[in-house]
């Protein structure tokens, strides 16, 4: 007793073939979109790799690129099969390939599911990499004369300007780091000597932030230095001042950006899974409808189409039995060994 059988006449078969052909080409476009998104995500990760200590995992974009190209290939093949399906001569040469193709599509759907899961789960990894990377970026801000780190200042400044953020958690991260290089400090000055001697590691620490933390929307010209000293500036209270510098931390800002990209890609992949399942179901119906034609010479005859030849439980049972026999052929069966040996 077939699973979800449907009766088909010639017109229904033709409509199914045409509709399926269009859905396959739509799936090819979606595959191209996934490929493009994979490349876009890879480029974005590369652009911000300095903020992540050059340590970020490119697993998700690489997988997306692979999945996108696979989707294009599989769906284009499916479209070709649909196109040829109404011509019995052309269809005969595709017939033997259909069962492996459907199995391949099942495997592809599983891969898509894995990619979607990774899209949602890898966000934690991105968060941790960002936290570590930004901490190091702030530490190396002043090293504009060290090869390999000389562009850290520029990158961090442009990131803070672009993402409207300051520091790792917030602007106070800048108070704990020496972000002015010793080249620009007058070590003979008393003030400088006081600050350097005021902490164990001999760092020149200040309650100031770089200019890239400034908020252009503030009505007041930006106050960068002596942020915690109310008397250093006229009519200034650092506890209630909100608009002067960006209050958001860059880790939060960058994470929000990447997680929104990954969430959208995840949703698109779930849509692709549904689309692929529809493709597979349609192809199964089409092939069974063409196979069960009572009179192959007469295209007008009726036929049945189904998803599974027997019910779900029976098909599952058969599958398990097959897998058991596959396992058994490798086992050495004691009784039969002697005559062969």
């Amino acid at each position, binding site marked *: 007793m077939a699973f979800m059988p449907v009766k088909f006449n010639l017109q229904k078969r033709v409509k199914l073939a045409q509709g399926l052909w269009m859905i396959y080409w739509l799936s090819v476009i979606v595959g191209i979109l996934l490929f493009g998104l994979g490349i876009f995500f890879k480029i974005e990760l590369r652009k911000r790799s300095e903020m992540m200590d050059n340590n970020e995992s490119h697993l998700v974009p690489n997988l997306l690129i692979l999945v996108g190209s696979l989707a294009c290939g599989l769906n284009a093949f499916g479209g070709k099969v649909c196109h040829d399906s109404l011509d019995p001569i052309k269809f005969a040469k595709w017939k033997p390939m259909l069962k492996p193709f459907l199995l391949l599509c099942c495997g592809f759907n599983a891969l898509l599911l894995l990619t979607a899961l990774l899209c949602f789960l890898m966000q934690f990894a991105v968060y941790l990499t960002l936290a570590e990377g930004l901490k190091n970026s702030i530490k190396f801000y*002043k090293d*504009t*004369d060290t090869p390999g780190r*000389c562009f850290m*200042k*520029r990158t961090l*400044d*442009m990131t803070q*300007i672009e993402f409207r953020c300051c520091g790792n958690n917030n602007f106070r991260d800048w108070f704990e780091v020496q*972000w*002015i*290089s010793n*080249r*620009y*400090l*007058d070590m003979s*000055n008393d003030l400088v000597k006081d600050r350097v001697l005021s902490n164990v590691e001999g760092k020149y620490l200040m309650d100031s932030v*770089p*200019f*890239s933390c*400034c908020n*252009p*929307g503030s*009505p*007041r*010209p*930006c106050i*960068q230095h002596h942020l915690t000293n109310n008397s250093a*500036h*006229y*009519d200034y209270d650092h506890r209630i001042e909100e608009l002067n510098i960006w209050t958001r931390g860059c880790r939060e800002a960058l994470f929000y950006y990447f997680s929104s990209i990954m969430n959208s890609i995840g949703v698109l992949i779930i849509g692709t899974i549904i689309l692929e399942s529809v493709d597979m179901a349609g192809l199964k119906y089409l092939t069974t409808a063409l196979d069960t034609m009572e009179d192959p010479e007469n295209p007008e005859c009726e036929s049945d189409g189904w998803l599974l030849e027997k019910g779900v439980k029976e098909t599952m049972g058969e599958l398990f039995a097959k897998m058991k026999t596959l396992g058994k052929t490798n086992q050495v069966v004691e009784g039969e060994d002697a005559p062969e040996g």
Partner: protein
Amino acid sequence: MVLLKIKFTQQRRVHLAQGLWLLSWMAVLWGGVIFFLGVYLKTELLRRAEVMDNTEIHVVPNILMMVGLASICTNWVASRVCQDSMDSTRFPRWKVPLLAWFAVSAVLCCLLIAVVVLSYALQGSLEQSLKVGLRNGIRFYKDTDVPGRCFQKETIDRLQMEFLCCGNDNFKDWFEVQWVSNRYLDFTSKDVKDRIRSNVDGRYLLDGVPFSCCNPTSPRPCLRYHLTDNNAHFSYDYQSEELNLYSRGCRQALTDYYMELMNATGPGVVSVIFIQLSVLLSLRYLQTAVETAMVLEDPEGDSEGYLLEKGVKETIEDLKTNALTILKFGQVDPDAAEGSSEAADIEKDEKDAPPTPAS
């Protein structure tokens, strides 16, 4: 004596009609491209409208948009004419509209050439407009509490950060303006009082710039205040320091940006001119070839196509006399009123007679 005569067989006419149909649809597409170029240019100009004093430069994108739309319509009409040209019952109705079409098409080509010329000619006007606009922007930078000007600070800051520029001509423009509002100045401080008394207008001037002038590529954390005082900062020389602030002025930066944008649209506009001219010439040939074939009462046979029925000079003379006759119809001349209308009738008869022997 016709201008640029070409012989057309039936097959050639059909090929011409098909080719022209494709060409006119391509021209429709290009017209759309020109329209969107105009829209994009206008959007970019409107985005920075706050730092521009006048809108003279907007004539370039306005003409582009107008020409784009007109080009879409005229070339669509051309494709309809092509479709009807092979049908001798439907083609005659296009006779008069085609004259109007040629005129409109010629006007479009002239407008496109005008756009190319204007985009260079208006550069001076754009610079002047930016000069005044930026000067006002810098002057009103501090007025974040005055309604109507409260966003000048944010606009100028974002502009300087985006276009990597500082001030109008250079960063020294900020030294001549009070850009810190009085609300944030402590008038009991000696330093503030000195500075205010140091100039006639009583403004708080300093040799400092806003943070948006800072250049992130500088190896040194940004120095914004006491820029002309070498002793105020360690290892600092005002004359030789290059990377600390943006050295370019915003007027130059914005002018360069808009000129680049308009130069980029240049090739598109020139190619549209060529396409429009080819559509015009091909349609004229098609029209004359089909009409000649219909007049010879052998729609399938050979015919001649030409650009102008008579030479250039004679056609211009004809156009002049036609224009004058139309003007005479409008004039009130009581004495010769009847005489002029009779003369006009005779002229009209004379006009109708010549075309037949020539074709």
